[in-house]
């Protein structure tokens, strides 16, 4: 089965799934913390409207996990705050 990396975990997925769908299928419901209060967030609208499910993909921050298609070998990391370390 194809997998991508989420922080230090290998996440299996079915081809055609989004990164977000693959994560919640593994019981992972959050992959971001908010900028001000550090609250955990994951999928909310599921269709690209709400920007709650932001995640860093292959080093590019603020990607919507509900829209990014899962691909073999993708490197997905938790996003803290804005996703830029300098903040």
């Amino acid at each position, binding site marked *: *089965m*194809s997998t991508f990396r989420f922080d230090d975990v290998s996440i299996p997925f*079915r*081809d*055609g*799934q*989004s990164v*977000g*769908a*693959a994560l*919640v*299928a593994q019981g992972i*419901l*959050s992959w971001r913390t*908010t*900028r*001000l*209060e550090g*609250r*955990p*967030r*994951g*999928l*909310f*609208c*599921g*269709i*690209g*409207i*709400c*920007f*709650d499910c*932001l995640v860093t*993909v*292959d*080093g*590019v921050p*603020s*990607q919507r996990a*509900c*829209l*990014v*298609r899962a*691909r073999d070998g993708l490197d997905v990391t938790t996003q803290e705050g804005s996703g830029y370390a300098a903040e």
Partner: protein
Amino acid sequence: MPLSDLPPDGVVIVGAGPAGLACAATLLDQGDTFVTVLDAGSGAGGQYWRQPAPPADSSDPGALRPDAMRGLHHDLGTFAELRSRLEAGQAAGRASLLTDHHVWTVVAAEGGHVVHAVDRSGGPGRERAVELRARHLVIATGAHDRSLPFPGWDLPGVLTAGGLQALLKAGDVALGPRVAVGGTGPFLLPVAAGLADRGATVVGVFEANSPTRWLRELRAVAANRTKLAEGAGYAATLLRRRVPVRTRTMIVEAHGRERVEAVTVARLDASGHPRRDTHRRIEVDAVGVGWGFSPQLDLAVTLGCALTADASGTPVVQVDEWQRTSRSGVSAAGEACGVGGAALAVAEGRLAARGIVGASASDAETAGLREEVARLRAFAAAMHRAHPVPAGWADALRSETVVCRCEEVSAGTVRHAIAERGATDARQVKQLTRAGMGWCQGRVCGHAVELLAGGGSGSPAERLVSTPLPLGVLASRKSRAM
């Protein structure tokens, strides 16, 4: 695709859902114009006929198959027919379907409009600017779930009802195992039925309104028997799966630390306020709440198209008997003209196409479509009247409850801006508190803020850039234009 590659006289349709697909299919049947359909999703279908992305390797036995999603969709026959007509148009060199294309703005240009999109098909970091010239533009941008805040709604595992269904339709994931569905509207039924059919334990459907409200709408119901049959089908599934449907009940709180662990539900009194003496706590792993849908009006507002209000007071695009907006060369069809479901969207898409090719108003086909649109619009109006947001929706909000999820603005801050600083609409609350100023541009909290401010839906927010785009995309666009 460079601008010069495209025929200058084409029709560009934004949105490949029911309205956009129907419009494209009819244009290809009736006219000889080139048709381009853009959609932010990975394939045609929109939210209603949402499908898994096509497999990269068709021999992969683990890949998701659209066929496996049968039972989750209604009227797939129409989808298959419309899609095959678009595919035939593509094969004949008369049509193009651009998926993973997010339209971020449209500007008037000589002889029509220029549509600006970001092509995200290459994945993160490989976005590309795309510009299309449109002799005629069709706005078929659909709608998104309407949300209202409640304590705990920002916990992971609490989604919109549409979000739960999107996971099912596109990802074959039934979030659970124990899930609560709440809000109002007939859409809650297919969401719950789909989850129950895929093995989730739906602990309840919590519908805020009473079904007796439909008794005032018998004319619209009698004229739309297929809608009744569709609803009855979902109700039968829920009965078979032993899913309790609780009316005049709402989810007033989600509990948990790092994720949702339980909800509190309450019965609503006759005036629509949750009764504290009816609180009941139910353990859950996931929640989906939806209060109907909000039309996506960004492009229409940017272009200055005249708006009107639907039966619920929601601003929608105003169209004439050919689905033409007040702007020359711009039509609109489907939920952008008022939320009313896929059958209505299909009829409006067909009508819009006939208007563009200059069909006769007196032909039987046009007359039939107009009759269908009027009948389905009457049903939509009945639905809006039967499923209002209850008066006491905000009773359970605490001062610290997050209202704007992006900017983390609390109910207390929003209420202070209204009560102490005199804000009377969402725009003023935004200026004072930043609510609605974040990534989603108020799409999620806007309706709630408007309600808290005591107004109706007010004038919709203008979003000149309707989807965030990397600066590199803008830069590449500029350098090419020079």
